């Protein structure tokens, strides 16, 4: 990898390369469009760095291979797309409960069911509310450019190790397939504790168990409270977002990933018409960046969530705004993406026209 100089790369490949540069030497996965460039890149590049690409027999097996590698304390990743991601839900719940650090990529495609190969963001609920059983959350990161896919992938591994929590990188099919110029600057990374908890062989120390069960409800509640405290800490420390033209905005869009890119153009178009509008772009989907939104509550007259879905994130926006301003929504589904012109029109109809979804 020619460090420091720009390369034209697909988002999926950029994630894979960034993972390797972040010290990930284990990738377990099962091919699925539109995420397959990730395993393919790993299959090609892991060899040279002495790492392992292993094709699992299924996504279920893949996520539990990740479980095993994470449990022994190694950096590990898998990547998939919506249907495969659904098959991993039990595993995600287990990974959380066993507090195993790992990074999972979901390159979202058209659903539900087998659906289609087009880009969507319709796994938002599944990603952020816990598609698996029980009270848990993964840290969910949503880049919106290939360069950000590089930067955030490196950060994802640090977050996972720092909090002993699974981290999901959520992108739509366009970001996974799109090529943009990208650079790989050498990065610092966080200070991390040694993984003394790992089950990697009890040499000269008491044995470690990495497990996800509790023997009594009393213990179960203690564990759940401890996990709850950890999630509160993450909520406190790790809300990330980017604002575009927000400082003097009267109205604001909320969008992530590709829809944020499209909306950014819509903002430019509206600004050209002299309408003061901005874009609030969540970079973490969980924790949802409430703080930044709350800071704007008194300023913004109306909000509009733009999504490649029937409207999922809009619920989190409403939960934060809590009735203090209208919150509306515009989206496309099934693999379709809105044009900036549509977003502009929807904005005028719903917010300037005062209508509300």
């Amino acid at each position, binding site marked *: 990898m020619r460090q420091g100089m720009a390369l034209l790369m697909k988002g999926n490949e950029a994630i894979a390369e960034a993972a390797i540069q972040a010290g990930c030497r284990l990738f377990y996965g099962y091919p699925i469009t539109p995420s397959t460039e990730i395993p393919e890149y790993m299959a090609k590049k892991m060899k040279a760095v002495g790492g392992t690409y292993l094709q699992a027999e299924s996504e279920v097996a893949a996520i539990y291979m990740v479980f095993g590698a994470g449990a022994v304390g190694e950096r590990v990743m898998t990547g998939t797309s919506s249907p495969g991601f659904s098959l991993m839900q039990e595993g995600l719940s287990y990974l959380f409960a066993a507090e195993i650090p790992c990074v999972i990529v979901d390159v979202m495609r058209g659903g539900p069911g087998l659906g289609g*190969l087009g880009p969507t963001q319709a796994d938002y609920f599944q990603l952020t509310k816990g598609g698996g059983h029980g009270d848990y959350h993964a840290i969910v990161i949503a880049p919106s450019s290939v360069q950000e896919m590089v930067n955030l992938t490196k950060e994802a591994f640090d977050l996972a190790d720092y909090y002993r929590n699974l981290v999901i990188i959520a992108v739509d099919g366009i970001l996974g397939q799109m090529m*943009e110029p990208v650079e790989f600057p050498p990065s610092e990374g966080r200070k991390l504790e040694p993984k003394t908890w790992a089950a990697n062989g009890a040499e000269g120390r008491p044995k470690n168990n990495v497990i996800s069960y509790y023997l009594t409800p009393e213990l179960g509640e203690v564990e759940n409270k401890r996990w709850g405290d950890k999630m509160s800490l993450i909520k406190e420390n790790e809300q990330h977002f980017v604002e575009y033209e927000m400082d003097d905005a009267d109205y604001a869009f909320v969008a992530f990933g*590709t829809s944020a890119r499209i909306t950014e153009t819509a903002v430019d178009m509206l600004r050209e018409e002299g309408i003061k509008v901005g874009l609030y772009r969540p970079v973490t989907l969980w924790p949802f960046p409430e703080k930044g939104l709350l800071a704007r509550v008194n300023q913004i007259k109306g909000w509009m969530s733009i999504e490649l879905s029937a409207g999922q994130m809009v619920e989190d926006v409403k939960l934060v705004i809590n009735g203090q301003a209208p919150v509306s929504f515009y989206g496309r589904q099934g693999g379709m993406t809105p044009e900036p012109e549509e977003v502009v029109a929807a904005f005028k109809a719903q917010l300037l026209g005062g209508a509300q979804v």
Partner: protein
Amino acid sequence: MSFSMTKYIFAGFGGQGVLFIGKVMAQAGMISKQQVTWIPAYGPEMRGGTANCSVIISNKRIGSPTVAKPDIALVMNAASYHKFNQSVVPGGTLYVNSSMVPELPGRADIRIVRVPVNDIAHEIGEAKVANIVMLGVIQAISPTVSDDVLEKALIELAGKKPELAELNIRALNAGKEYAKSL
């Protein structure tokens, strides 16, 4: 510097190399320090189905990477002609592979350039460089990057195959040549 953004769509059926020439344009844009995006799209067929890619070359940050209304569209087969002919912006240019797309009543508000690229490629002796021939025509008529940058891009993408680069550049020039006759 003033704001300039050019949007392309390159379409044809699989195997005609439309994704590749899109990539060449994006690479060339990057070499000339522009912002670029490249997005592929495939039809449901495994092979021989339609494929296309959207490319944007801009001197400022690119928001939406999708291209609904291209400034420049290239269609290598009839299906693609019917799919994209209407979407070209008024004043834009539509490049048509006349070896595969019959003469049809076209739009008056755009420029339509018909090129028998298969036949030209045949003359060069390599059917599969028809796409590069068309790239040459585009470069001659509506360039967004300089000639040498485009050649540099072709060479970079040929990787360790100099003979391939050489062949492509021959095709490129054939295209430019033909453009003169237009």
